[in-house]
Structures are given as C-alpha cells and as structure tokens.
C-alpha cells in the first residue's frame, strides 16, 4: 500500500514539474500569437487599412478578444468605443497587466486618423514582442529547472514514503 502511495506522490511531483514547464511554453505561444496578430494588424494599417471588422478578423485568427471586437463592431457599429471594448475576453495564460498592455491600442483604432491607429498598434506590437522575449527567456531559464525539481521532488517523495 505504502509503495503505491509513494509512487503516486512521486508521479504527482514529477507531473507538477512538467505542468510548470508546459505552462511556460504555453505562455510563450500565446504571446507569440499576440505578436503575430498585432504585426498583421500593423501591416494592414501601414498598407492603407480598410474596414476595421475585417482587419480584426484577419489579425485575430487565434485571438478571441479581437474576434469578439469584430463581432461587436458588426452587430453594433454605432456603439461608443468604451462599450465596444469593455469585457473583452482575457487570456487565462497572461496576466492582467500584460493584457492591458496588449489591448491598449484598441481605443486608437476608432480614430479617423490612420497615423494614430498605426502608432498605437505599433506600440502594442513592440510590447507584445518584448513580453514574448521575456517569456521565452523565462522558459529557457526555468523550464528545465522545474522539470528537474519535479523529478527530484518525485524521487524524494517516493523514497520518503517507501
């Protein structure tokens, strides 16, 4: 009985280590998706822009917040920008302040001035690139550490409980 318990404890600890490593990878992937989406939006604006719902759909293929904003623009085009952008879905893998930084360009998208739109989206894109770089460095630094800690903790739990 105690050997099974020890084995289970070992697996749980190793699993926690794997889970933490996967979390770091998943965060980096989400930030990469944001970087790509904002880059796509920036490119479209640089080339002259177009109707905002269409641009958001193309840029936001993997970004639910942008897709929801595109839907709202089509359903309620005359609603004020603050209502259109309130309550957009957050990414569960990203912190609130990271989401705020990534979505900070949205109010400028309602401006009639293309330059304002472009500069706001460029800033958000740069921020996304910076966050992704930080996430990648964190993943490279800590991912193996969490894996090893998980294995070590698992082995220690197994030994202690046996």
């Amino acid at each position, binding site marked *: 009985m105690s050997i099974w318990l020890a084995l289970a404890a070992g697996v749980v600890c190793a699993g926690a280590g794997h889970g933490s490593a996967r979390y770091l990878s998943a965060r980096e992937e989400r930030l990469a998706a944001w970087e790509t989406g904002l880059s796509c939006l920036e490119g479209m*604006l640089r080339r*002259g*822009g*177009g*109707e*905002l*719902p269409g641009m958001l759909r193309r840029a936001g293929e993997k970004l639910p917040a942008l897709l929801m904003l595109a839907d*709202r*623009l089509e*359903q*309620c*085009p*005359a*609603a*004020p*920008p603050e*209502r*259109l952008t309130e*309550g957009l879905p957050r990414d569960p893998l990203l912190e609130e302040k990271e989401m705020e930084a990534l979505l900070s360009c949205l109010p400028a*998208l*309602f*401006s*009639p*001035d*293309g*330059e304002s*739109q472009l500069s706001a989206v460029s800033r958000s894109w740069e921020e996304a690139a910076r966050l992704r770089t930080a996430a990648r460095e964190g993943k490279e630094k800590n991912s193996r550490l969490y894996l090893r800690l998980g294995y070590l903790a698992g082995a220690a739990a197994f030994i202690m409980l046996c």
Partner: protein
Amino acid sequence: MDGCDFQGSEKGLFFGHKPGEKNIPCGMDWQLMIPGGAGIPPRAWAEAREIRLRAGQPVTVCCGDRLEQGRVRLTAQEVTWAAQALCRHGLAARQEEMSRGFIPLPGGQRLGVCGVMSGGVMKEITSLCLRLAREIKGAGETVYPRIKGQNTLLLGPPGTGKTTLLRDLIRLYSLDGLPVGVADERGEIAACRDGAPQLDVGPMTDVVTGMERSQAFLLLIRAMAPRVVAADEMGTPRDMEAVRQAVRCGVTVLTTAHGASLTDIRRRPGLKRLLAEGAFQRAVILSEVGQPPRVEALGEREKET
C-alpha cells in the same frame, strides 16, 4: 453584448448604454447608425433626403420641404462615431475621399464630411451630411420618348430630382440597347462600389467614377464608343468644351444644370454660348418636387435669341 439594453422599435434595434443617456442606435440599416435619432418620427426617416449631424446641435432630417430635429445635442465624438459606423469603421482608410469632402457609401448614399484638417488629414469630424440616393425607376418614362436621340439639358433648382431623372433616362437609353457612357465624378449617378453600380443604370452602361467630368467624357468617347454620354452638373468651361467635342463626334449628350428656368441658364456665359450654338435640342425643366417635368424644344429658338 452583455449588460446592454436593447429596445425593439419598428425600425430595428436601438442600443442604449445606460438608462437616461442618449440612445445610440445600431444595426445594419444606415438609418439606425445615426445617433440622437430619438424624437424624429419614423415617417421622417422613410422620407428623408438628407440627414445632417453637427457637433453641438441636434440631428436634422431633411424631408423635401420640411425639417425634423432630434431632441438632444450631439457631441463631436458622437458625430465621429456615426461617421465611423457609416463607413464600417474604415474612416482612416478613406482619408483621400474625406479630403475631397465626401465618401460614397453602400446603396448609393453619399456622406459629406467636414471637420478639422491637419497636414491633409481629417483629425476630427464636426459635421456630416448624409445624402440619400433616390432611385425611382420609371421617373423618366414620360420624358424619354420626347428627348430620345436629342442632346438634352435637365434643369431645376437643387432637390428637384435632376439626378434621379438623369439616372432613369440613362437606364432607359441602356435598355433600348444603346451604349451609354456616364461620367460619374462624385459617384452619385451609378454609386459604383467594388466596380459595380449599386443603382440601376442599365445593362449597356459604362461608368467612370472619380475622374474629372470633362476628362471622363473624352475618355468615354475615345475608349467605349458610346451612343450617349451623360454627366451631372456640367458648368465649367472645360465641361462646355467636352460637351462640344461630344456633339462634334455625333454622340448624344445628356446632362444637368442648376437653374430654375432657361432664363436662369442664359445668364451663364458658358451654357448660354452652348445653347446659342444649338448644342442642345431639348430642355427638361423640373420646378417642384412632385410636379411633372416640362420638356421644351430648343435649337432654333436659342439661335434666334
């Protein structure tokens, strides 16, 4: 959207952001993208020819001979939101059109834009004028047999339906199998969007949009071999010269001019000279909304004048 109040109305959905605040209409129908519309009766929307939004003023709906106004004054932001909504939030991509002063919209509507320009870019919109296209098929049926094949000038004060009549005459010529060329500088006649006319100008009609009228006339004559060329509001010396060239090429000309009567037109040197040269054989005079147009034969009388 979660937490929003939707009120049904006979015109569709209205989106109110909080109780007591101004209703901002929404919906795919252009009528519902105009903020501050509360208080304007539904009949006014149906009869509207022009809708004006100005910062600091209530929305105004012009229905021919009467005006209807909303109850609340609009802010500059609301005027800008309305412009964005009408352009499907693509205003920034339409700066060139804004700098010309108007944006063609789906359905043949035309949005006039006025505001604060800086460095050639419209930074803030303070006034909008939404002109609504009226397509009335059959408007020209009584006139067409009397002007067919004759160079014709459609006259009338603003708002009397010259463009509506012009459009239908173009359609009738086209249905008769005659190739028609239309110089549609401001996109009001055919309202082309993505290359296709949104208003019915007939199956044999070629449209040039966005090009200066006189140039477009000559391009059409050289490139498209029309039997009829048409344009709205020709009045500049270049326009007059283009009409002369068209007449010399044997192409039937159909155009409009502002003026309540032939007497009015004869006070304008360019048109007076064209009339004296016998360039036009017919004048169609529109006097009031709802009144049938009057067709007058020109030619000999003008030469004698």
